[in-house]
Every structure is written in C-alpha cells, then in structure tokens.
C-alpha cells in the first residue's frame, strides 16, 4: 500500500535502510542515493525523448495530411529505435581546421544544460530531484550554459555559416531571456518563494488564472529560447545551411537533435509546474503517484500546443523576431511585473489576503494590461496602414527632369 502511494520515496527509503544496514556511513549513503537519483532522472528524461520524437512526428504528419511513422510497432511507436541505431552507425566527420576539443564538447554541453533543468522539476510533492530555494534563478542560469554550448559549436566548426548561426543564437537567446526572466518573476512575486516545489504548493489557484499574461509571455519567450519554429532562425536552412550544427554528423548531430526535443518538453514541464499547478490536483497531497499523473497530463497538454505552434507557424524574419521581443514582449513584461508587484503590495497593505480577492484583482489587472496593449497595437497598425496607403514618391529618371 505504501509502495503504491509513493513508489519513488518508498524505494529511496528502502535503499537508504539497506545501505545503512550494510554499515555504510550515513553521508556516503546519502551521496550514493543522490548520485543514483541524478542518474535516474537524467536517463528518464533522455528516454522520454524517444517517445516525444514519435509524438511530434506523428502529429506533424497528421496536420500535413500524411500518415507519419507507421511501420515499426503499433502506430509506428518504435520508429525512433531504428532511427537511433542508424544514427549510432553513422560516421563522425570533424571538419579540417576545427577546434577538436571544443567541437566535441559543444553537443555534450547543449544536452546537459537541458538535462540539468530536470533537477529542479517537481514530479510530485515528494518526488523532486533537488528542492533548491533558488529554483527559478537556477533555471535561468542553466539556460546560459545551453547558449554557451551553441556558441562553442558555431565557433569551433571552422565554418562561416556555423559562425553566423551562432551569432544569431546569441542575439536571439540573450534577447529572449529578458522577457522570460521578467515573466518568471511574476510567479515568484505571487508565490512569495523561488523554489519550484514551493511555487507549485503555493498554487491553490493556478498562476495561469492569476496572471494569464505572465504564462503567455513565458510560453512564447521560451519557444524562442528553444529555437524552433516560428523562431528557428538559428538554423534557417535557406540562409544558413543548418546554422551552428552544419558541420556535425552522426551522434554529435543527434545530441543537438535530442537536446532540442528534450528542451521543448522540458519547457512544457516548466510551464505546467510554474503556471498550471504542476502536480496539484484532487488527492495529490496524500497520493504522490496521482500527482505524477497530473503533472504528466498537464505537461503533455502544454507540449501539444508547443508542437502545434511549431507545425502551423511560418518562420519569422530576423528583424520581425527581434522587434517582437524588444518592442512587444519586453515592455509588456516590464509593465506586468511592476503592476503585479504594486497590486501584491497594495493588497498586503490593505490586509486583504483572501485568495478570491487576490485572484479577481490580479486577473482584472492582467485583462487591463491586455486591453491597453491591444489598443496601442491597433493604433500603430492603423498608422502603418495609412502610411502604406499614401501615394509613394515615384523616382524620376534624371534626363526627364532635365528636359522640362
């Protein structure tokens, strides 16, 4: 019964008892179990990619009116395994003049930056890798390591297209980090903590209800952070061959590929944890295994939208992408953050701390900001339409001017 209620903690406790029974020092036993836990979480997240690649390909195919993978296993569910075997057997090519160590280190860093994120994601109340009290900051910090991996890949490949791809990566990922961090601060303000698990526990009302704008801002800037359509300018094949991963082959390319798919799923998990209540749900406090189920259901719902966004949106131009960030997402995020802070402090000063009132006030404030934003956008669009519809000055050839 205890096992069914909370299998992971049960196994952890059993293992600790076993190791202590073998006369192991308590600190060594803790270290060994933590190492084992890290290994399991990392392997689990990588194994999950095998499934999510299939989900994504299948959905991709259905939206494009194709069948998708359908040969290996029922509904083609094992298609990824032959693909894996194929990629294992491919040749590794290192370009001439490449910086070998940096070149080989880059894919490892990119994947490990994504796997590191799983350390703080709470699967259930008791099942969390490491409940650090600066979880939100940790997420942002780990994202920086991913950027580093991509720059290293671009620089060490000794290829101009790869270097251009890396330049774009920096301008994109560093810019989109700004609204993402600002949007992440809203749940921190609302939950009054920075630990991811405590933030989940604080969501008696989902933060997506309290602050839908923050959830959307995080979702969109995280899409750019992953670097896939509509923000896949890092590897725009019509312009840059394949961007920073041009020179990579075999499993080294596979690492980037896995890193991208895993990052998409990880961002969905983060959105579900930070804004959609994570493992919260009826009975999840007493039955952590139920919490895990809720967490994965929510994550897959968000992941579905991530995939649909990727499939249905055309690629943005680089100036559109940067304008969207600096002229739209960042100002909205700044206004939202300041307004949320003022509202929270105001409610605290008045002494009204009931959840219903907080929800209503925050939701109203969010809707007000949305209304204001839409109004400003409409005005600028009207101005733009006027400018376009005005008669344009026509270039006159010099000799016609001279004749009259």
């Amino acid at each position, binding site marked *: 019964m205890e096992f069914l209620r909370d299998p992971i903690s049960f196994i952890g406790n059993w293992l600790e008892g076993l190791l202590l029974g073998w006369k192991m020092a308590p*600190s*060594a036993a*803790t*270290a060994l179990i933590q190492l084992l836990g890290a290994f399991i979480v990392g392997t689990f997240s990588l194994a999950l990619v095998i499934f999510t690649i299939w989900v994504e390909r299948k959905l991709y195919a259905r939206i494009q009116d194709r069948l998708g993978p359908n040969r290996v296993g029922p509904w083609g569910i094992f298609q990824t395994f032959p693909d894996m075997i194929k990629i294992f057997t491919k040749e590794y090519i290192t370009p001439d003049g490449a*910086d070998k160590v*940096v070149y080989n280190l880059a894919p490892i860093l990119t994947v490990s930056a994504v796997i590191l994120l799983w350390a703080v994601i709470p699967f259930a109340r008791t099942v969390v890798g490491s409940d*650090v*009290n*600066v979880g939100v*900051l*940790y997420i*942002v*910090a*780990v*994202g*920086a*390591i991913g*950027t*580093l991996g991509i*720059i*290293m890949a*671009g*620089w060490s490949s*000794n290829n101009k297209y790869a*270097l251009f791809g*890396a*330049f774009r990566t*920096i301008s994109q990922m*560093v810019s989109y*980090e700004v609204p993402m961090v600002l949007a992440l601060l809203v749940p921190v303000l609302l939950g009054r903590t*920075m630990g991811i698990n405590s933030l989940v526990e604080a969501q008696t009302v989902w933060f997506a209800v309290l602050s839908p704008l923050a959830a959307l801002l995080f979702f969109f800037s995280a899409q750019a952070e992953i670097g896939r359509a509509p923000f896949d300018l890092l590897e725009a094949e019509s312009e840059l061959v394949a961007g920073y991963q041009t020179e990579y082959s075999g499993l080294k390319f596979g690492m980037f590929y896995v890193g991208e798919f895993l990052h998409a799923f990880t961002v969905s998990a983060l959105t579900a944890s930070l804004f959609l209540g994570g493992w919260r749900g009826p009975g999840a406090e007493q039955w952590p295994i139920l919490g895990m189920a809720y967490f994965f259901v929510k994550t897959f719902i968000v992941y579905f939208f991530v995939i649909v966004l990727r499939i249905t949106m055309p690629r943005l131009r680089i100036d559109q992408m940067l304008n969207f960030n600096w002229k739209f997402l960042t100002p909205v995020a700044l206004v939202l953050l300041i307004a949320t802070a003022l509202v929270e402090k105001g409610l605290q000063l008045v002494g009204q701390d009931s959840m219903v009132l907080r929800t209503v006030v925050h939701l109203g404030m969010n809707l007000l900001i949305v209304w204001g934003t839409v109004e400003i956008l409409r005005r600028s669009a009207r101005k733009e339409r006027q400018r376009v519809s005005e008669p344009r000055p026509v270039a006159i050839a010099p000799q016609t001017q001279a004749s009259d």
Partner: protein
Amino acid sequence: MDPLQIIFFIFAVITLVAAFLVVTAKSLVHSALWLILALFGVAVLYVLLDAGFFAAAQVLIYIGAIAILFIFAVMLTRKDLRDAGSQQNGTWPLAAVLAVVLFAGLFFILSSWSSFGMPKPDMPAGANALSDLGLALVSANAYLLPFELASVLLVAAMIGAIYVSLIKK
C-alpha cells in the same frame, strides 16, 4: 573522508588549473573557455557553502552574461587569435616573486583569523539565507544605501549605452 570534502578537493583543483590555463592558453577563445570553467568551479564552492543564491548568480552573471559577451566580442575579431611571439617578457621573475609574496601575505593574514581551519557550521534549522539577504538589501540599517547607489549606477550605465548607440539625425 566526507563526500563533500572529496567534491571540494576535485573542484578546488579544477578551479586552480583552469585559472592557471586562463593566463597561459595561447588562443584567446580558449582562455575565455577556461575562465568559464574557473568561474563554474567557484560556483560549486558556493554550493558547498550552502550559498545557493550566490552559486546561481555566479553562473547567471559571470558565465551567462559576461563570459558569453566576451566570447562574442572575440568571435567578431579574426579567427585565429594567437600571438606569434613568446608569451613572456623579461620581467616574469619579478612577477613570480610578487605573486608568491602576495599569496604568502594573504595566507598569513587568513591563518591568523580566528575561524581559520574551522569546519563549516551547520545552518540553524528554519534559517532562510535567501530572505535574510533580500531583507538586508532593503533595510535601512543594513545595505539600503549601497544597494540603491548600485541601482542608480546601473541605470546610468544603461542610459549611457543607449545614448552612445543612438544614431544622430
């Protein structure tokens, strides 16, 4: 030996070796990458001291912002950033003596400190270093003035950067 001590020794060695290679690496990009490893080693030391906030801030600011901008600037210049000549000039013995004296002086001062060689005390139960830090930054008795001054300085730097990059019409 305690597992934490083993981790400390591993990362102390990594940090020192990386810091040494920062100044001896021939290529400038390699120097930057070694610098990142050294900074990361320091972040691990912060974690071992139960200062998670400093560790995350270290990775975020030094690796995520400063080192990446550094690499970016280096990449914009020519590809192979190696100086052809020798890396040392005639004054290196003097520099070595100065470095040894500085290290010995610091070691001497630190070893006369009362808590030198003391094991790390456990955090009292219920202590929240993170909120203590936050409160200290905004309390008038602690660090409010330096904190506000730093904010004003950063805003001034930001406005300055915008002004410098504006295209004059």
